């Protein structure tokens, strides 16, 4: 099968690559640690930083990528996208029932209203409302699908084998691991993001937050709550001044 050939080819060319400039710079200690068992080993240059640098420099020289565009993209993802955007959406929904209704029926338009840009959510974002009786939890068992336009790039735990494997078979155990014990009578709905739909959770507004402003509420909303592994809590010591 062609796909198998591809992976065999990869071994071949990486063995070849290992004799090149990249491999020459790898400390010998990095080679030795992997070689105490007997299955078929790839001789891969093991330092991803060096491999990345080599590949980027090649792609730039070939005119396939523009280094400044890569810099700009990283800046966008480190500074413009992130869970603070989702937190604004949640706080608005908590304080404006009409907005909440629009968010639950047409998330893309409602998210655009927050000032994240028309394209921010995409057409395929859905918001899941947590209530005292229904708890939603989002996972991607097959890879790492995540509502990144609203929440930023997913954390490592969301992409981990532990979370991906267990969220669907033992969601209550996963939630306990995050410190959240749900009553037996709460219905848990796990959303496995198998297609291009992207889900995020509208958490419950915490009790005692009645006097907080929208921006103060947004400060309380965590990424974990919008994935569904946590509740939004009032800060210890009660409401902020």
């Amino acid at each position, binding site marked *: 099968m062609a796909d198998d050939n*591809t992976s065999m080819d990869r071994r071949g060319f990486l063995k*070849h690559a290992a004799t090149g400039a990249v491999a020459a710079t790898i400390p010998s200690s990095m080679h030795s640690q992997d070689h105490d068992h007997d299955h078929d080993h790839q001789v891969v240059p093991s330092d*991803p930083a060096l*491999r990345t640098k080599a590949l980027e420099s090649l792609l730039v020289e070939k005119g396939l990528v523009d280094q400044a565009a890569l810099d*700009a993209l*990283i800046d966008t993802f480190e500074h413009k996208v992130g869970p603070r955007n989702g937190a604004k959406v949640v706080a608005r929904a908590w304080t404006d029932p009409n907005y909440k209704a629009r968010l639950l029926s047409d998330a893309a338009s409602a998210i655009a209203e927050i000032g994240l840009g028309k394209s921010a959510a995409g057409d395929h974002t859905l918001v899941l409302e947590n209530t005292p009786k229904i708890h939603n939890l989002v996972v991607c*068992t097959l890879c790492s699908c995540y509502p990144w336009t609203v929440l930023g790039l997913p954390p490592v735990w969301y992409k981990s084998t532990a979370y991906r494997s267990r969220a669907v078979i033992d969601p209550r155990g996963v939630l306990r691991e995050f410190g959240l014990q749900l009553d037996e009578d709460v*219905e848990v709905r796990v959303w496995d993001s198998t297609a291009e739909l992207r889900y995020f959770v509208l958490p419950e507004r915490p009790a005692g937050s009645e006097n907080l402003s929208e921006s103060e509420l947004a400060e309380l909303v965590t990424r974990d709550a919008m994935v569904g592994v946590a509740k939004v809590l009032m800060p210890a010591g009660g409401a902020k001044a």
Partner: protein
Amino acid sequence: MNGVHDMGGMQCMGPIHHEANEPVFHSVWEARVYAINRALFAWHKWNLDAWRYDIEQLPPPDYLRMSYYEKWLAALENRVVKYGIVTKEELASGKPTPGSARATPVFTVAMARVVQPRITAPSNDPSVVPLFQVGERVRARNINPLGHTRLPRYARGKTGKIVLDHGVFLFPDTNSRFLGEKRQHVYSVQFAARELWGEDASPKDSVYLDMWDDYLEHTGS
């Protein structure tokens, strides 16, 4: 493909490591790998389904051992050669073939400043008729294709209920191998936790999966 990436329901993968105040990227190379991956999409040499399939085809022991961005990097090295935008020799030497033409990057700074989700098709195409209706009981087909699929093993053969029709999407099983877009409806299908995992699961709980028409069959009841 019944690969290790299809890990819903696997057990003993260990505790979930939650990092407080986690940075977006843990090192410079992770950020560069992320950005290169996104930028190269602009050449339209591959699609998102093919991109995912490339990662799934990493050897299973590597898939489990590598960090997330190590997988992205390894698949990227394979991909640029597979699609012919870089030769094996260039990847090995780190230098363009002498005398080869230099391209002009398609992905620009302006594009990088816009947060743009990847839209693969309009989902409101009325010419594509849904094969199932909201409220209908359906069974996930028992298929074991060798290629890419978004029908996880844990749902195959199980019965659920259609709760939402999301509209029309490209079919990843064919699109990932450039065998056609095969546009069809995608539904949110609710499976009772006990249907998936047996009597030890909570009777209250459900798992919702998004499923294409081709993943479903009528239950005959």
